[in-house]
């Protein structure tokens, strides 16, 4: 805008075609409404800063819901109170954009309280214009969070009573208690002097965003002649006499000078190094050979149970991972749903030549019981002819069932002797693969690196598996 003329900003549409009303050259705002003035100051600043093409305005719910009729920018209209969240979402996709969240008092300070505080606290690099007129305009004059004590509205017909509705919320003060915001000021659209302050604040809030300095909020006290039931001139007087006492004007936070300006870099979509970043597996030739287990041990449905801390879940994962390396269909699921009760840690594993149906195992062909409660709870679920492997160091009785095979092994004792009691699960695993030939130990060893985070523990775990296999060999003589 040339300095020698004050005219309609180019950041406004010439004709408001989006307005379905026949009057497409005037706003929908009531005579004297403060929104129009603030719109003008924002549009002028957008013009002057040359940022129109990258500006995106978020219209709220409230009288300014139709701000998109007017601003010749990108426009996103969002749900009541959610503009700071939606603006966050968009700004993160386009950090180079200039995002304006334009909100009223019901939108920002009532239904959207969480969103504004959290966006401010994240220090989102956008600019919030908060229009406080102490009343709900769009819906016809109801109580706002900023309605003054004693002020009559259609939902506080006897005047705002702090005992019933609490006190007016001071947004600028509240936001300025947070560490992140860069600039918080309260201004008022009243006389020429105060309006000039509004103009300066608008420009500063936008300049901060251009310079990537972070979150700015400008609270703008504004009149609502229609719902205050006063003429525009009386309204300004009422604002000056009453609102400013409750909502003092001034700067509540200004770290503009402390924060260095930075460039807003555009987000670039790329797939460089994506598979590595996602830690996806690298294609390798599998050399693992699987011997055919006896028919009764094929396609096992496995339930593993013990105390938390005995490594039951890890045992299951190791079986599934090794099974996958050996070419089986596999599934693993931790105890979940009804089985979560009872203080035991369980998991279910399937290894199969076919596509696996139920991932949960209600009738196991193999039960691993690492403690007595597990044996007592699940013994009867095992299918006839199935197998129960149990840790004799922990389980003080043998299975009662006579129609299943039972393999007892002092796994905890063996692991203890190896120097790691927690290796009992791997001893059991060794016993299982030794007893059934379901997997070669190489498949287990191949599975270990992806499951055991502390690499120095891998040899110990390998030894435990070997010990379990050795126990079974000795058993058979």
């Amino acid at each position, binding site marked *: 805008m*040339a*300095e*020698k*003329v*004050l*005219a*309609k*900003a180019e950041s*406004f549409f010439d004709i408001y075609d989006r307005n379905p009303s026949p*009057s497409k*050259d*005037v*706003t929908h*705002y*009531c*005579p*004297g*409404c*403060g*929104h*129009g*003035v603030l*719109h*003008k*100051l924002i*549009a002028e600043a957008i013009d002057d800063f040359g940022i129109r093409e990258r500006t995106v305005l978020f219209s709220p719910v409230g009288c300014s819901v139709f701000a998109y009729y*007017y601003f010749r920018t990108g426009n996103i209209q969002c749900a009541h109170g959610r503009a700071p969240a939606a603006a966050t979402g968009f700004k993160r996709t386009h950090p180079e954009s200039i995002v304006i969240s334009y909100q009223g008092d019901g939108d920002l300070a009532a239904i959207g309280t969480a969103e504004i505080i959290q966006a401010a606290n994240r220090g989102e690099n956008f600019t919030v214009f908060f229009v406080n007129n102490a009343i709900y305009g769009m819906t016809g004059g109801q109580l706002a969070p900023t309605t003054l004590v004693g002020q009559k509205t259609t939902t506080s017909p006897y005047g705002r009573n702090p005992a019933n509705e609490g006190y007016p919320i001071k947004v600028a003060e509240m936001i300025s208690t947070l560490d992140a915001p860069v600039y918080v000021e309260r201004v008022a659209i009243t*006389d*020429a002097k105060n*309006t*000039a302050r509004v*103009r300066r604040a608008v420009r500063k809030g936008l300049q901060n965003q251009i310079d990537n300095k972070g979150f700015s909020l400008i609270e703008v006290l504004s009149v609502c*002649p229609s719902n205050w039931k006063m*003429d*525009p*001139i009386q309204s*300004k007087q009422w604002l000056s006499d009453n609102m400013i006492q409750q909502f003092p004007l001034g700067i509540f936070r200004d770290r503009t000078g402390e924060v260095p300006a930075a460039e807003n870099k555009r987000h670039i979509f790329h797939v460089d190094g994506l598979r590595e970043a996602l830690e996806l597996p690298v294609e390798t030739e599998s050399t693992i050979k699987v011997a055919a287990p006896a028919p009764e041990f094929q396609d096992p449905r496995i339930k593993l149970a013990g105390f938390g801390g005995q490594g039951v879940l890890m045992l299951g994962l190791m079986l599934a991972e090794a099974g996958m390396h050996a070419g089986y269909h596999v599934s693993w699921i931790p105890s979940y749903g009804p089985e979560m009760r009872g203080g035991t840690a369980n998991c279910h594993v399937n290894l199969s030549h076919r596509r696996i149906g139920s991932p949960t195992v209600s009738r196991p062909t193999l039960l691993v019981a690492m403690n007595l409660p597990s044996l007592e709870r699940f013994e009867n679920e095992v299918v006839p002819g199935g197998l129960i492997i149990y840790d004799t160091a922990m389980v003080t009785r043998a299975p009662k069932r006579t129609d299943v095979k039972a393999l007892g092994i002092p796994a905890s004792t063996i692991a203890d002797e190896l120097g790691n009691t927690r290796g009992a699960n791997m001893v059991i695993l060794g016993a299982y693969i030794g007893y059934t030939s379901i997997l070669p130990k190489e498949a287990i060893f191949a599975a270990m690196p992806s499951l055991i985070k502390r690499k120095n523990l891998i040899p110990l775990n390998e030894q435990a598996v070997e010990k379990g296999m050795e126990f079974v060999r000795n058993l058979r003589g």
Partner: protein
Amino acid sequence: MAEPIGLERAKIVVREDECKGCGLCIEACPEQVLFVHKHLNRLGYHPTGYKGEGCTGCGICFYQCPEPGAITVYKKGYVGEEVV
């Protein structure tokens, strides 16, 4: 080529059909050069009028007016077409 000669005196132009008659510009004008028309405009409001002289181009009315296009202020020395 001769320098174009700018406006000798500032002036305000009110687009009557965009004026909602709120009166804020009239109230704020330090020179008291604005007035309320007796006639109604297309929107049914009594629009603001300019007395035709006395405008200093201070711009106060422009920033008091809530309508983006209702008031245009040309300052002394302005060169160019009238903004339409």
